[in-house]
Each structure stands twice: as C-alpha cells, then as structure tokens.
C-alpha cells in the first residue's frame, strides 16, 4: 500500500466505516488501478509533497478522497487549463491532470490540444473507457462503432462520428515529450501501465516536458457486464481500435525553467519608463485666454496623418506643465483608413469631461474632417487646417478664427511627409499660444529621445508650421 494514499479516506463520507478505506468506484473499475499506479509512482519518485492533482468531472472527480497530495478540483474539460495555471504559479510543482474521455476528448478538446502543444512539463492521465460513467452511460467521443450507449441506443453509427484516438492525436504534436497508450486487462499490460505512468511523471520531474498516458480502462457497470468480461471486452474490442504502445518518446533535454518573479522597485520603474526628474516648466500660468479652466481640442485627419501623436503630445505637455490633460482617440475600424480623430483636454485642475463635442481649438488635416467637425467649434474658437489639401473652406461662425497652413506642402518641402503633424503642432502653437513653444518642443524631444536623429527635422517642421501660421494670420 502506497504512502501517497491517505491513511483514512476522511473526505469519503468523513472516513466513517468502510468508506474510510475503500474507494467509491464500482467493482473492477479501471480507475482504482490507475490511482494505485499513480500513487506508487509518486512514492517511488519521492514527489508526494510537490504533487498537485487536477481532478476532473467524471467518476474520478473524487480523487481528493484518496491521494495525499494537493488537489485542485476543476470544471468539466478544464483540467488542462487549470494544470497550466498551477504549473506556472509554481514551476516546482508536479502537476497531474487526471481526466476521463468526456472531459479530455470532448468538452475539453481545445484545452487538451493547446496544453499538449504548449508542452510545459505536466503529466496527463487519460482514462479511456469508451463511455460517460458518471452521468450514466452516455456515448463518449471514444465510444466504439456499433457500441450501444444510452445516447446511441442502436449502436454508434456513421452519423454520430467515430471513436477519436487521442494518443495518436497528441503524439503528432511537437509539444509532448512522451505519449503512450496502455491497458489494465492482464498482468503484462498492468506492468506496462505502471511503468508508463511513472515515466510520464519522470518526464515532468526532469523538466523535459508534457507527457500523456492513455489508459484503456474497464467500466463494468456501463459495459453492463462482469469485471472479467469487461477486461475481455477492452482486449478484444477496444485494443484493435486503440492500439497499445508508445506513440512518442522524444529525446528532449531538460529545458523547463521559469525565473522567480522580481519585486524590485527600480526594475519596475525602469520597465515602465517612470522618472523621478521633474520636467522643466515654461508656462507662466494656465492659458486662460482660451478658457478659464478647461480647454478642449479636437484633431482630425485620415489614418496616417499623425493626429493621435500630436494629441498625445499636447496632453503630455499639459501634464508636464502641472496641469491635467486627457486624450481619447477614436479607435477601431473608424481609425482604419477613414477618419482618425482625437479629443484632447487641458485643464487647470481636473478634466471633467474628456470628450470635445464643442472644441475651443480644432485641427483639421483634410477637407472631410473640416466638413465634419468645423461647425462644432465653439464661438470664438480657432480652426487650423491644412490649406494644401482643403480648399474652398465653407464659412463657419464669424467669431471663429480660421487659419489655413499648408501642412502637406511644408512637410513635402522638408522631404518627410511624416512630419506633417509636427508642422500642424507648430501652427497650433503660433495660432493659439496654448503653451509656450518650449513646452511643446521639450515634450517633443522627450518623446523622440530614443530616435534623437529625428529631433532637428521635427524642430524645423515645428518652426516652419509656426511661421506659416503667423504669416497666415497677418492676412
């Protein structure tokens, strides 16, 4: 008797009476033997303390009655996914998935395959008895052709599909290191079964990978026969469909290793790019000439115009100056190809509503954007638009200032269309004086610090945009 079994099965009817030392399985059920070989292998490998079994839904749902290891009882079909969670939480844990055919090969098929292919060292024991035992003998994915079950009363036929060979399926994946199908009907097969289960655990212990043992097991109750006949049935009916033997035995070197998580503040701050240096401020005060406490902007163009980048720069600049700033991009399909627009707020204390239905400042990169949002600008606001692409601007509220700057032409002149948005930023600065030039330039330089070579070009674009805006306003 293996030490990996509890001394008394307290969880089985509180261990009272006979249940304290017997299983809940039917006489001759294959589960008992699989449990026993698992327990013995755990003993022999000395891994009892590390072992976590992931218990299925099915007749073996009560594995935790018997094995003196950690237990995680999970939902039908989800053992593999649960096992992965345990393994990555503690890479030293020996995680055993114990699953029946409905669990592993029907409802949990996606998790089964994905986990096998992931290949983390996990040991899977797949108990294939060609039937749903716990729910009362319904057809399983592994039910044989012609086999009568409560949901294939005339025998499984072509219309209900054929038996699925999991060991072969798993073996053809790259992830697993070892796959074998075994049976329990004779001393020789039982010996192989025990050996396979131990080897599957060893593959995990040695960090070589995922191992899968399919056990052809007897369910005398739903085969509606004696334990003896059930063994014969497995041998004569199941084995021809489910050939026994090793399906994969790869020579993986031990590879599995996961570092211990770090909780070092410096590492974290560096990773997230946080800095303890206060950015330089250039503002004398909040730009109250635009709005007393909360300035709203909208920037709109087509996908590649860089409206979002400029929006972000303005929000960042605001925060660098000690104000509040927000930026909401229009995202998703509407940002693909079509119009891309951004709402920005700059507030003295707190941005209340980050949307800009009636912006103080509107930057339009093309004619459709101008047409779409031009009329939403609040009286007394400012529109800055690309006069190289938007001609014949429709009149808006006479109190709204409209400044046309040829963003595209200027950028083309600089030989880099991508700086069109920085031209626009320069124009916006000159037209509105929302912030001093230096505020925006410092933020721009900071954003480009990893691509320092681009800074001079961007500064030039900014300056030319500003200059063009001043020119335009003189007219």
């Amino acid at each position, binding site marked *: *008797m293996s030490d990996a079994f509890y*001394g*008394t099965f*307290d969880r089985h009817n509180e261990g009272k*009476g*006979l249940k*304290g*030392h*017997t299983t809940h399985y*039917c*006489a*001759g*059920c294959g*589960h008992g033997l699989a449990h026993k070989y698992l*327990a013995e292998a755990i003993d022999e490998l000395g891994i009892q303390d*590390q072992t*976590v079994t992931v*218990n299925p839904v099915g007749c073996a749902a009560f594995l935790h009655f018997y094995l*003196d290891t*950690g*237990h*995680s*009882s999970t*939902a039908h079909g*989800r053992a593999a*996914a*649960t096992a*992965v*969670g*345990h393994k*990555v*939480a*503690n890479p030293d*844990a*020996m995680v055993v998935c114990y699953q029946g055919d409905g669990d592993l090969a029907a409802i949990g098929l*996606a*998790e089964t395959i994905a986990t096998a292919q992931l290949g983390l060292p996990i040991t899977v024991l797949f108990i294939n008895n060609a039937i749903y035992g716990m729910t009362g003998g319904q057809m399983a994915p592994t039910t044989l052709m012609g086999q009568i079950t409560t949901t294939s009363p005339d025998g499984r036929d072509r219309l209900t599909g054929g038996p699925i060979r999991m060991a072969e399926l798993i073996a053809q994946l790259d992830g697993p290191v070892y796959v074998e199908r075994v049976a329990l009907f004779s*001393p020789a097969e*039982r010996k192989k079964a025990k050996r396979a289960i131990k080897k599957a655990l060893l593959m995990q212990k040695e960090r070589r990978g995922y191992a899968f043992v399919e056990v052809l097991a007897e369910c005398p109750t739903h085969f509606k026969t004696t*334990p003896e006949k059930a063994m014969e049935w497995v041998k004569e009916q199941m084995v021809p469909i489910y050939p026994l033997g090793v399906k994969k035995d790869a020579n993986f070197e031990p590879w599995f290793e996961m*570092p211990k998580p770090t*909780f070092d*503040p410096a590492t*974290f*701050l560096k990773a*997230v*790019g946080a800095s*303890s240096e206060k950015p330089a401020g250039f503002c004398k005060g909040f730009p109250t000439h635009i709005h007393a406490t909360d300035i709203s902007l909208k920037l709109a163009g087509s996908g590649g115009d860089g409206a979002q980048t400029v929006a972000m720069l303005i*929000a*960042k600049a605001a925060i660098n100056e000690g104000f*509040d*700033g*927000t930026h*909401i991009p229009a*995202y*998703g399909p509407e940002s693909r190809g079509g119009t891309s627009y951004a709402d920005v707020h700059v507030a003295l204390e707190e*941005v209340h509503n*980050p*949307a800009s*239905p009636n912006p103080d400042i509107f930057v339009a990169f093309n004619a459709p954007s101008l047409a779409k949002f031009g009329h939403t600008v609040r009286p007394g606001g400012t529109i800055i638009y690309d006069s190289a692409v938007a001609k014949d601007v429709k009149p808006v509220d006479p109190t709204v200032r409209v400044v046309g700057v040829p963003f595209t032409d200027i950028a083309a002149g600089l030989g880099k269309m991508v700086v069109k948005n920085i031209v626009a930023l320069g124009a916006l600065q000159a037209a509105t004086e929302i912030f001093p030039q230096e505020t925006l330039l410092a933020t721009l330089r900071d954003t480009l610090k990893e691509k320092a070579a681009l800074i001079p070009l961007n500064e030039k674009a900014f300056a030319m945009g500003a200059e063009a805006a001043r020119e335009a306003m003189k007219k």
Partner: protein
Amino acid sequence: MSQANTRPKPFLLPDYCKGCGRCVHVCVQGCISFTQEINPLTGMVPVTLDLAKCTGCGLCIEACPEPYGLKAMEAGESFELQDPATLFGARRSTAPEPVDIPGRVIPMPSSEPLVIKGTYAAALGALMAGCRHVFGYPITPSTEGAELMAKLLPKMDGFYLQAVSEVATVYHMYGCGGAGLPSLTFTSSPGLSLMLEGISYMIAAELPGVFIDIMRGGPGLGNIGPDQGDVKLACRGLGHGNTHAITLMPSTPQEMLDLTYLAFELSFKYRNPVMVMADGYLGQMTGKVKLPDHMVEPGLPAWGVYGDLNHRGNLNSSVFLDEATMETRNLKLFDKYEQMKSEARAECFQAEDAEILLVACNTPSRASKGAAQKLREQGARVGLFRPITIWPFPIEQLLPLLPRLKQIVVVEASKNQIEDELRLALSHAGITDPPPITHVQRYGGILPKENEVVAHVQNLLGRA
C-alpha cells in the same frame, strides 16, 4: 525488493474487497476464489484466499484496484490482526497544518506622473499589487493591456500566457489563483460571457483573481464602441449559482490603476474574484497617472494548493454532493457577500445641496460631471453621485442625499443596468418613495453625451 524465498504473500481484509475478481484471474496457483457469501457490512461478495500453494508472485496485489485491498504481508504481520488503525496506521496524512507566508509592502521612490492610457494604467496597478501572472485571449478593445503585460512581465520575471480561449483563460486563473498567487486577465464583453462559468467555479472554490472588462457594444458580436452592457453580468450574473463579486467602476486612467491595485487586495481579503469594469473609452483614454508610493510582493496564503509540503493537505473544490454541505457552503459565501458590503465606495460631486442628482459610472460619469458643471453655471442645483463599486451598491453614501432630491437621473450606456442596481439598492434599504428616477441612455457602443444630459435636465426643469 524481498528475496525470492521470502517474498511476501498477499493479505486481504474481506471488508475492503469488492469481489471484482481481477486477482482471481491472475493466480496461476489457484489460491484465490470467488465465494457466494455476501459480506453483511459491505453488501459485496469478497474473494477468499487459500495461500497454501502461494508463491508470493505478487500478481494478485498488482491487480487489485482497491488501495486497501490486497496488500503484501510484511514479516511480523499476522492474519489475525484485523484492526485497520493498527494495520495501516492511524494517520490520515502526514502533511503539516499549512501556515500563511505573509507578503511584503515595498516602498517606492517617488516618480513623476505618467501619461498613459487606461488599459496601461490598469496593467501597472496589477504589477504594483504583486501580480506576475497574466492570462488572456486577445479581444478589442482590451488588447493593449495584455500587450503591455506581455512586454513588461518578462522584465519582472513574470509570465504572460496567451490562452486558447477565454474559457481556458479563466481556468489558468483558477489554477494560478488556486496555488495562492495573484493573477489577472484583460477581456471585453463577449470574452466575459465566455468566462462566466469559470468565475462561478472560482467563487465557489473561494479563489482570488482580477478580471478587467473593457465593455463594448453588444449584444452578440456587436461592435467595439464603448458600452456598459456587462453591468448586469457582474452584479447579477457571474455564472450559475448564488454568486457575487465586488465590482469596481473606474472613471479615469488614474482610477484604472488605483482600483486595479485595490482589486487585488480585496480579491485576497475575501478569497473571491474581483471585477474591474470600464467602458471602451476609458480603456483608450490617456491621462495623468501617479504611481502609488509602495508596491506589494505577495506572500503565500495557507489555503493555497501550491505544490509543496506546507500546502499538501489543501484542496480547492466546488463539488459538495451532499446538499446540506452545499447549503452550508452557500451560507458561508452569503456571509462573505455581507462583509463585502463594507467595501462600497462612491464619489459625490457637488451633491451636498443638489436637487437633481445624476448617477453615473465610468466615462458617462465624466460627461455627467461636465453636465453638472454647465447646469450649475445656469443656476440649477445639479450634482453627481458616482458609484465606484456598482456591487455592492454604495447605498449608505446615497441615503443622506435623498431628502433634498427632487429628481434622480441615471446616465448610462446600457438599458437600465445601472438604474436597476440603484432601484434594487433603494428597495432593499426600505426606501418606498424615492424621488422620481429618469434616465439618459445610449446603446450599442455609444456613450451618453454631456449635451444630452444637459438637455434632459433642462427639460426636467422646464416641466417642473
């Protein structure tokens, strides 16, 4: 292994034999035979052993499926010894009583505010709360959070795993949370629907985990516009059974960080999942985010199934076949839900003297704030009540405002989902005559706008 001549012979307590006969067929010596006699204790028909010819080959022992069935009789043991306690030892288990390994709070050097989007802020909140395991399945508009985690976690020796589905995701969390460690996922509405089964299991097994749901337009595949149509799932529909989880409703990128951080604390405090629900706008919204002044290195709770000696005796489970036991389990959960009510939080904005109270969460609360301010400028006494926890609903914080109120206006991007929480909370608090409740709602991936709220209130005032 024993020598051939001293190989142990089998021994069997008939009470532990189910008479399956697996042993009978393997004994070539014919030592084991079926009987006809029913064991009165078990109702089974055990086999009988006659070991005169037994060679001690052991095949029968290997064939017996019962852990305490046929066993090798070691030297010194005797047939007569029938007391299982003596025979098998009185131990249930040699596993020790598990103990808590406490976590650590690590002070952080102060840093300048970051300018980041909501999903990023939530990710940083999780990292600072000690989360190093993130699982997820990509779904817009929540993907940026997962992408940032995939980038940052390796730098902190953590692990991001892209699951095969949302269904698998929640069970990765079941496993990782079950081991006693913090874990997180980012998802969006259709993904949350898929996770509900697992959330029910996590609640039942009392496992922690934080779910960030960036709500989008539905039902069905819907669209990726901002929405609040998952509120009823979080408050009333976390899978089957009597489930609840604290549900936090941030309204700024800063709160995305702060409330995610808080979510981990609450998740472990109550051993229950915690939901952080944001609309798609908030997920994408960039704003000022200040980092907390400390971060957490999590410990290892006593109850975790970690896979070590300390935790060997543990079990995470939601299966309690005995109805009375399952009812007790339910009562235990209800007790916890009651305690969670102390976590209810709300923000009041210009609410003290308000006659018209807007009630809103997430981004609609910001549109409402804007509206409240505009309406104040027009002389109307309008305030905002913003539940930060939508479950438990912060009714205690609302009650003192009620006497002054002439109207309540619920602003939400769903069909009555927030309003129903308010109405239920009022009803449970015994408020039979609340002020009239009207609403401003948009659906299908559209948020209510500030001017719609303003117009609605102006309309109410005109009528009044």
